[in-house]
């Protein structure tokens, strides 16, 4: 008998039974376990049980009667079946897209298959029309390990190499996972620094080690605010700047910059844009990245910093 056929019979039998069945009873019912000696049949049954559990099937061991003399196996149907969720065809398609992102493991795909199997909406027509899932790469290293620790409320330890500063081990209570700009971050409370920090998963240089229980996130915790970033750098913007752009680039600058607002087009053709800002190097660098297509009108302090940087570069004193 093919192993798959044996497994199917085992699932059907344990799902159908009202009371737990001992191995002896199972052996009498399913011919495949009845062949050969009892010990090897038992070993085969143990392997099959593991296979079922691996497939997410809850095989329970329970007393066969109130005196607890013998124990038997059963698959409780209330734990076996996926609850019915009614999805629209558009929702099903969106889940298909999520399950078929590049680098997706088989887990997401099987989750999608089970969900689509439990609903009346079908994707046959959509798939037949040749529609393709847009390949959006949302994969990230260590994602499974971190999400499991987060869901299980476990603290984690890992080796980390920050963009700037010293590499080293970090121990954190994970509070949230955030996906931004194509990268996954875990935000949590750093045990040694006694503060909330964010870590990019792609900069983690070791496996994720679970180290005990994690404390809960503070009331009203907002992970996104720990990752607020823009031309002004990290954190909240301190000021608003007025920056002019040449028409060939203004549309791009506005589209790429969160919070940017087009104000007006000046008589000389330059487009005036309002941008969240602060007097930091990162804001000055952002302006300089547009070269001669951008100039700061206000505030004066930022404008002076930009001019000073440009003068140094133009004279070559910053370059060498």
């Amino acid at each position, binding site marked *: 008998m093919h*192993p*798959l056929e044996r497994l*199917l*019979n085992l699932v059907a039998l344990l799902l159908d039974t009202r009371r737990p069945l001992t191995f002896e009873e199972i052996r009498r019912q399913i011919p495949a376990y009845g062949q050969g000696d009892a010990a090897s049949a038992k070993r085969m049954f143990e392997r099959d049980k593991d*296979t079922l559990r*691996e*497939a*997410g099937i809850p095989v329970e061991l329970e007393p066969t009667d109130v005196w607890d003399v013998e124990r038997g196996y059963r698959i409780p149907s209330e734990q*076996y*079946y996926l609850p019915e969720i009614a999805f629209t065809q*558009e*929702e099903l*398609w*969106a*889940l298909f*897209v999520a*399950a078929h992102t*590049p*680098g*997706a*493991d088989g887990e*997401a795909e*099987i989750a*999608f*298959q*089970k*969900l689509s*199997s*439990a609903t009346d909406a079908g994707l*046959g027509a959509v*798939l037949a029309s040749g*529609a393709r899932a*847009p*390949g*959006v790469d949302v*994969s990230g290293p260590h994602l499974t390990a971190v*999400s499991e620790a987060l869901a299980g409320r476990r603290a984690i330890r890992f080796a980390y190499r920050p*963009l700037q500063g010293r590499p080293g081990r970090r121990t954190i209570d994970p509070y*949230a*996972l955030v*996906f*931004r*700009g*194509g990268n996954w971050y875990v935000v949590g409370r750093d045990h040694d620094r006694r503060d909330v920090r964010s870590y990019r998963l792609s900069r983690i240089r070791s496996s994720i080690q679970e180290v005990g229980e994690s404390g809960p996130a503070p009331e009203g915790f907002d992970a996104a605010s720990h990752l607020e970033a823009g031309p002004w750098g990290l954190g909240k913007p301190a000021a608003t700047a007025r920056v002019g752009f040449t028409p060939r*680039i203004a*549309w*791009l600058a506005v589209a790429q910059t969160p*919070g940017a607002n087009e104000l007006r087009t000046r008589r000389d053709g330059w487009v005036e844009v309002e941008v969240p800002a602060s007097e930091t*190097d990162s804001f*000055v660098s952002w302006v300089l990245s547009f*070269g*001669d297509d951008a100039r700061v009108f206000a505030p004066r302090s930022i404008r002076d910093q930009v*001019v000073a*940087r*440009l*003068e140094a*570069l*133009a004279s070559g004193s910053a*370059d*060498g």
Partner: protein
Amino acid sequence: MAEAQGRKGDRTKRPSARARSTPKSSVRLRRLLAAVPYIVRHPGVRVAEVAALFGMQERDLVQDLNLLFMAGLPPYGPGDLVDVEIDEGGRVWIRMADYFSRPVRLTSSEAFSLYLRGKALLGTPGLEEAGPLASALDKIEASLGPDALSRLVERVRAQSGAGFERILTVLRRAADDHRRVRMEYFSASRDELTTREVEPEHVFAAMGHWYVVGWDPAVEDERMFRADRVRSAEDTGERFEPRGLAGPERPLYSRSEEDRPVRLRLGPAARWVAEYYVVEDVRETPDGALEVTLPTKDLPWVAKLVLRLGGEVVALEPPELSPMVRAAAARALAPYRRSRSGDD
């Protein structure tokens, strides 16, 4: 396309080891138990549709259905077995499988995996499916219970410029239907805004950006474009024959024969350049700087990179790069000098 060109694709490569030829029994069992309820609910569905939906080869599906046909309950008489019927037209019916008529609940790793991807997609700007995806994830959350998934991922709304979604939709439709588009594109590497016609074959997102891969008939070569640098796109209605260009799994950066070595010295605040772009011959200097070689076809974007990083980067090679940076700084300074008389 500065960033598309030199940017590192640090996406993780997963082995495609889920071998199609001999899947493990547990994998076959999982797939089959997922597919059977679908067939029960859609009597007479095509085998090809089921295979496509459940990621199986048609041959493997038929083989597994033939085994299902032998399974059932003791004493395994004709009335106890699952009834599977496949007709000559490739349509399939399953009856007498009450216990297999609904799928198995999600394992936690299945639920996490789909949920995390879904949430991440919601943080990708410009995705057409975002609305239905959000409601589907809400339904999953509600069904699995508040403790299973809630707050696992913070939803971060990524902003995007108005019109960007519309451009993405035009590009995706054109790629699906094999129609040529006319677009205005800002090439950061060449620092110019151009109008061109492109035959788009793939539209995908990676590392936080949407890319379009297409054939450019004017240069008779394939090109990769950053969708957020497309100023306008219109469908010309002209159909093309796809050439099978590589899609989302392609590297975001590939070497070109026209590449020339650009040597830079990076100060501490500019070390990210070595992580962000593909660099070679990395050497640490005694004073803590990093010297790297950045292979690239075009110099204008490197000049802007040096400008942006101010004194943190020194252009070592080629010799014409330093004067280019100085000239660019002088050009950027000119309007400030003119307006000193009080233009604003």
